[in-house]
């Protein structure tokens, strides 16, 4: 009897404890889902607060936060300031990643092949059809390139990866910007589509003479040959965490309203030219300030203590000054009754 009372009391404490915890929900992008989930687990252990994140895709994340069915939305494709204003949303980045071209060329080792944005665009437009084309051999004087036909591989599913990649091509090639443009799925002129990074990598591995683009981690796998891309400083940096961080560090954070910052072709000497951040959307004047505060508290905690987790999962954390800037934006932008929803506590 006594034992039962103790157990009952224990349950009651557990129940009230759960009810008092700051539980909150988010939905959206699949690319950062692994790191959000890892952060959420550690956060739950540290504070008892639970995040329920549904990786339903950026499009779904945007729709759900606009409909206010979740506490935050997550998207790989930043929203423009007009769109944020229309829906009363605030946007901030969490982690950075890079996109790397991969090729299948007999006799070419990883990192040997040099490419420029213009050359990649011309391949994806179907204007360069052989690997020994003058445009490619000119920037690769030491390499013996085979006369194989070029097969381009792209993502078949709508993806933030495609958005960053096509944004880079649009930035570097006027012809690309005019005929195709940038989006998370576009009207490809040629080539074939693989589902997900895995699908693209599989097609490239199986097709001699092919070129594809994948998230950084997939370019590090066995038997994958990645290529180097010329950046704004004219250099060919190695794709790695340092190069993505360099791109994030030299980006004009705080100068573009709504944090619509693309990390494409940033000026740093070591900056990887095809980098991008992934973003969180929260309401500016939340109907339920407590839950938005819970979201901000979580990401503040992740900024402070989550870098190691992110690096372990091959994401690149934001540079310190950028994090400070975001924290200032939170207190300036996200308010209820004229007061900041979250002020660091």
């Amino acid at each position, binding site marked *: 009897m006594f034992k039962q009372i103790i157990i009952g009391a224990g349950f009651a404490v557990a129940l009230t404890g759960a009810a008092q915890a700051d539980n909150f929900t988010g939905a959206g992008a699949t690319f950062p889902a692994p790191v959000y989930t890892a952060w959420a687990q550690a956060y739950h252990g540290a504070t008892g607060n639970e995040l329920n994140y549904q990786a339903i*895709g950026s499009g779904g994340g945007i729709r759900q936060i606009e409909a206010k069915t979740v506490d935050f939305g997550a998207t790989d494709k930043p929203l423009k300031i007009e769109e944020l204003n229309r829906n009363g949303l605030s946007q901030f980045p969490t982690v950075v990643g890079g996109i790397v071209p991969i090729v299948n060329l007999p006799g070419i080792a990883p990192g040997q092949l040099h490419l420029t944005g213009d050359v990649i665009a011309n391949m994806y437009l179907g204007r360069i059809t052989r690997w020994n084309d003058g445009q490619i051999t000119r920037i690769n004087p030491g390499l013996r390139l085979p006369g194989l036909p070029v097969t381009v591989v792209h993502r078949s599913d709508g993806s933030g990866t495609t958005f960053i990649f096509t944004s880079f091509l649009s930035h570097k090639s006027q012809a690309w910007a005019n005929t195709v443009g940038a989006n998370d799925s576009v009207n490809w002129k040629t080539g074939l589509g693989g589902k997900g990074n895995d699908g693209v990598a599989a097609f490239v591995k199986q097709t001699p003479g092919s070129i594809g683009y994948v998230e950084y981690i997939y370019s590090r796998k066995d038997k994958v040959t990645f290529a180097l891309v010329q950046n704004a400083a004219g250099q060919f940096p190695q794709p790695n965490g340092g190069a993505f961080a360099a791109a994030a560090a030299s980006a004009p954070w705080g100068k573009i309203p709504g944090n619509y910052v693309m990390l494409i072709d940033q000026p740093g000497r070591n900056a990887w030219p095809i980098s991008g951040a992934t973003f969180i959307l929260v309401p500016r004047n939340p109907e339920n300030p407590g839950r938005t505060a819970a979201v901000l508290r979580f990401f503040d905690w992740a900024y402070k203590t989550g870098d190691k987790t992110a690096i372990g999962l091959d994401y690149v954390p934001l540079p310190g000054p950028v994090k400070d800037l975001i924290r200032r934006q939170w207190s300036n932008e996200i308010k209820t009754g004229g007061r900041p929803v979250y002020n660091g506590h």
Partner: protein
Amino acid sequence: MSTAASAKTEALRVADAQGNARKPRDDWAFRTLCLSAVLAMMATLIGLVGSLVSGGWLALSHFGLSFFTTSTWDPVADQYGAAAPIVGTLITSFLALLFALPVAIGVAVFLVEICPQAIARWLAIAVELLAGIPSIVYGMWGLFVLAPWFAQNVQLPLMTWVTPGSWLEAIVMGVPNGANIFTASLILAVMILPYIAAILRELLMSVPSHMREAAYGLGCTPREVIMRIMLPYVRRSAIGAVMLGLGRALGETMAVTFIIGNSHNFPHSLFDSGSTISSTIANEFTEATGDMHISALIALGTVLFMITFVTIAIARLLLGRGGPK
């Protein structure tokens, strides 16, 4: 006396039985339960059609007939024409049927007429096991095993063998990596084979034994019994079985998405990459942000629903009229 009494109890028993059967409350509850089950199902169906049409209305009303006749699929410029995925869906499904049907007939005939019954039971289970393999497994197997093998052992030899400029070259040209409408159709064929084979087997078993025995009695060989008596007897119902397989091929998503190459252009050859309605929806729906893009994808769903509905309706019509002729 005793007979009169027993007749009376008998009459009472009958009346009781009838009275019990008519007891209104039980009956009412049971009827309502069944009716509400049907109503719930019909409401789901009508709601589904309604939301498909209303969701796709923006695209359907904006593009009109050109949604079905053009094949530009450009999410950047918000220009959508669904001809390529519609054609891709029809081509892969009919090719799959073409590959699967002869094998299915062979399997069914063997199981019913040629194989000893003790073994046939186990073989039938093995065939049905094929139907239990999840679609994504077929997709992975297609992408990582079938596609490279096919490229190496079929596509490349064919491409080097054909004379340049011939009509044969026009059929086999394409990127030699095995991701094309032909391999997608092959995978689909494997997936619909167990369905068609199982129904055909049931149909062949339903042929009255006196017809078979009469045919054998007249001195027909097993081949003649099968070709002249049994298959013609189930012909009409068999068409229904085939249509059910077709209906499944039309809607199959994951396996096809992995291996069809996902290109929104019209396929120019048998070994060219293409797309189907369901693969396009699966690929783009999660990340579609524009209203017109979403609407165009839902409109695609409406088109697929209509195609499948017509197929199943024909199948039901033919199956319902089973029996001789």
